[in-house]
């Protein structure tokens, strides 16, 4: 056997097998998935609420009769706009540092901080995806709903949003993929995510090749698996129209 293969074999064993170091990666995968999943849920909730406030303000403001409701909506819309501007105008890394070391400095639940930080970040992008999706639906759709006597919320819920969801699914999937990869910076604030797992192994073994290639491959597989899931879903949704 050539010299270099023997060396690679040895390096591989040092990186993953010795002292069960592969467990750092397994833990990392778990944490990355947990972080991404809950951050996405938070992001979607925030995104839906913000998109609802923004589109209701745009479409319904003149129709609302109650002056108190009108005032709330205007203030809410203003807050949403500020949130979108700040979140989309600053680097995610900076936001996360601020949440960890300023806003939630007293919390030692790092995972929770991470979920909140990434969720707040993602919410801004999800909100604009949803709002764009709603605006792309032909106005005749909601006019038809309203002319049948359905109210604004019913028209949105039964007619506009189902069509929106199908249109924005690719963009939402993309946002999920971006989020998944972006959680790689969570290690900077001490969340033991996948990237952090590789860095721990590098710190112990002074080897970079195998740990880094391994996590690159793992991220890739996760993204590909998810992409495949979304394609399945899209195909099912599309079947209902043609």
């Amino acid at each position: 056997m050539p010299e270099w293969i023997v060396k690679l074999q040895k390096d591989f064993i040092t990186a993953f097998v010795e002292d069960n170091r592969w467990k750092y990666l397994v833990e990392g995968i778990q944490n990355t998935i947990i972080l991404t999943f809950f951050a996405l849920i938070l992001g979607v909730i925030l995104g839906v609420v913000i998109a609802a406030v923004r589109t209701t303000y745009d479409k319904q403001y003149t129709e609302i009769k109650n002056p108190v409701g009108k005032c709330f909506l205007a203030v809410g819309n203003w807050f949403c706009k500020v949130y979108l501007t700040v979140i989309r105008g600053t680097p995610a890394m900076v936001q996360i540092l601020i949440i960890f070391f300023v806003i939630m400095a007293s919390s030692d639940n790092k995972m929770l901080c991470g979920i909140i930080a990434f969720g707040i970040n993602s919410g801004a992008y999800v909100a604009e995806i949803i709002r764009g999706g709603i605006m792309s639906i032909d106005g005749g759709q909601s006019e038809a709903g309203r002319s049948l006597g359905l109210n604004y919320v019913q028209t949105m819920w039964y007619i506009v949003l189902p069509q929106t969801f199908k249109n924005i699914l690719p963009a939402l999937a993309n946002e999920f993929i971006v989020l998944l990869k972006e959680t790689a910076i969570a290690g900077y604030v001490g969340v033991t995510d996948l990237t952090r797992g590789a860095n721990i192994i590098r710190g112990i073994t002074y080897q970079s090749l195998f740990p880094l290639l391994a996590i690159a491959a793992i991220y890739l597989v996760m993204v590909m698996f998810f992409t495949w899931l979304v394609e399945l879903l899209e195909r099912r949704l599309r079947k209902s129209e043609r």
Partner: protein
Amino acid sequence: MNGNHLIRVCGLKKHYKDGAIKALNGVDLEVSKGEVIVIIGPSGCGKSTFLRSLNLLEVPNEGHIYLSDVDITDRKVNINHHRQKVGMVFQHFNLFPNMTILDNMTLAPVKLKKATKEQAEKKAMELLRVVGLEDRAGAYPNQLSGGQKQRVAIVRALCMEPEVMLFDEPTSALDPEMVGEVLDVMKRLAADGMTMLVVTHEMGFAREVADRVIFMDEGVIMEEGTPEEIFNHPKNERTKSFLNKVL
């Protein structure tokens, strides 16, 4: 109040762009139950704006609209309730593409609790049979021709059992060979006693079906009368020149 009138419109005005465009400039009209009114006029004269303000898809700036003696321009009335009584058919059909024909038709009656799902479906199937589309109940709008789509749009509105039907150029987006099938459905509806307001360029339909023809121009009703009066003996110069162009 005059109980004979299903719709009474007084001094209706609508402007856009802070008054720069006067789409409606004082429209008065009374519509009796069962009447078929055809509205004609040059492009941009306010026909659509007028029709759309009758169910408040456009909110007028001035004037009143009484529907069965209730002023729907009053901010206190629940407009959703009144819209249930006013069916509307659009130029571009506006069917819901993500639902089957049957679901298009039953959505509003079921969600608004006018009928159970079974009742609504039974009624929808009856109406589809009338317009010859009962075998397409499970199809999606994209699978239908333009004429079929518009027939579905008409019966979708009828599922709410409206008291009046508004048609805004219902055949303008159709290929010529499909115009007839839609007009036939509308003629039938008129013969069954439905109160109808129809904006159309189909003068043959107006002559045959209308009780009254209204000529609009520059946001007002310039002339109105029976089809015979308007088409054969128009008095207003504008009416004459418009008819010369289209007939």
